């Protein structure tokens, strides 16, 4: 087929959501209202999930929400040459890291403002918050 024979049309689809976090809602509500992180602790095996899970995926036990401090250590840090769209107006050097909050047995993925320093595993970080918390991009971490 010649290029001139190809027929193309412009289409724009827009989808509006009222997206529910379901059983994970407590994590976002606790952050939005109290600026506190939450994990969920398995009542059977004691594993602390953060992000929280209503059910323990290791032993299938029930879990209960627990408050966590908003400080922890970097497990892996990745420098970003291109910021995520939620951060595109921010001018400082940043990266994304796997962070284990104190008391949790799993990691969160979060933005870290690195001030141009390559952060190594074990670096201590503390959370900072935007005014309104809807997503995980509405908090970030800085070195302590």
């Amino acid at each position, binding site marked *: 087929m010649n290029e001139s024979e190809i027929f193309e049309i412009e289409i724009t689809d827009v989808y509006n959501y009222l997206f529910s976090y379901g059983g994970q809602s407590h994590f976002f509500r606790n952050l939005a209202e109290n600026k506190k992180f939450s994990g969920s602790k398995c009542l059977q095996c004691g594993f602390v999930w953060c992000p929280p899970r209503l059910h323990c995926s290791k032993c299938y036990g029930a879990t209960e929400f627990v408050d966590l401090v908003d400080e922890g250590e970097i497990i*892996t*840090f990745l420098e*970003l040459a291109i910021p995520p769209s939620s951060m595109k107006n921010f001018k400082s050097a940043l990266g994304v890291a796997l962070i284990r909050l104190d008391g949790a047995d*799993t*990691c969160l*993925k979060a933005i870290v403002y690195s001030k141009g320093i390559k952060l190594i595993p074990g670096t201590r970080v503390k959370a900072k918050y935007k005014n309104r918390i809807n*997503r995980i991009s509405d908090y970030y971490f800085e070195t302590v």
Partner: protein
Amino acid sequence: MKVGIVGVGLLPWKIRYPDKTYFELSMDAMKNALEDANISPHEIDNVVYGISDLMVTFVRQCCPSTIIQDYIGMSRIPSVRVSAGAVSGAMAVRQGMIEILSGMSEVTLVIGVGKGMDLIDPKTGKRSKEFLKTIMLDLDTTWELPVEPLAAANFSFVIQAHMDRFGTPTEEQMAKVSIKNHGNALDNPLAQSGQKITIDDVLKSRRISGPTKFFDCCLYSEGAAALVLAREDRAREISNNVVWIEGVGNCNYRSYMPAYSDLGRIPCQHIATKKAYDSAGIKEPLKELDIIELHDLISGIEIISYEELGLCDLGHGGTLIDEGVTARDGLLPVNPSGGMIGNGHATGASGVSRVGEVALQLRGDAGKHQIKVKHGRGLTSCIGGPGISQCCSIVMGVSS
């Protein structure tokens, strides 16, 4: 009872096929596979599709397999669609094998197709941001997507963690993989991205995230591939050059949150490939395989894959590329077709074409990029989304 690959149908990889829909591409791939097998469409009694969920947005069509099934004239027979991100194609081959071994089919057609480049911004004429937004839906949309700019960042995390833990791969080693695969693609007439580049070209290319730069990444493409699988007795009737499926393993691992022992590794690939090796009786892959075609979404991932595939100890994958072990004329060529870095990547099509490439190589039908076949055995190992959570590994051989 065994299952054999009796027909391979591959298409050129292109940035965009504006003149073909996804069902038209599927027809082209099917016709190539049937011609290769020298059978008529009426001998197919079952179809398995490897089509990723991304296609719902890419081509604005749910259940695209139904549209394809009608277009390729197979409405009379059963079909099933497999979706597993970038692993969709390889999983479809596995599913096709299962359907034959279960007795539900004698001759199964497997089609993998991916098309996404109609997502173009009419103002700029370039790929729209919605294309990458769609790819990003392969990540955990609550716990990863909002903080990651590109899907490549997800893979870069694994590479960075591996570097933190083992000191490798170095960026020079990553560059050598990029040079190898871009270079191999020059001898593959179907490849999209064959080019001669240097270490300096790679190291100076635009940085994407962490250690990953532009030339370390595969490019997104459009394409389709098809295979004809047959039950052992039918395979022997159809072809005197059958490539047998000797071992299969797959794994659908945890979502992104790693256990600390997982850091910098691809656990799903280790688990899936061990299953495939055990089924096929492979104990020393470096000595028993002639070829590996794997998913080199990013160059550093290929190096980590060498370790997960048991070609070397953990932390030593970089040595294999340094010493030329995985070059096309090396002890065990990896991605002699160019892999994804050299060919391009379209979910669904990639996995089926990796299996097809190994089959053609083992048959001695790979043309200019043919490798020396000594043992008559090869491996495909496809990893993919979300992130690197799923893997399907398939051992093939030409022994009777």
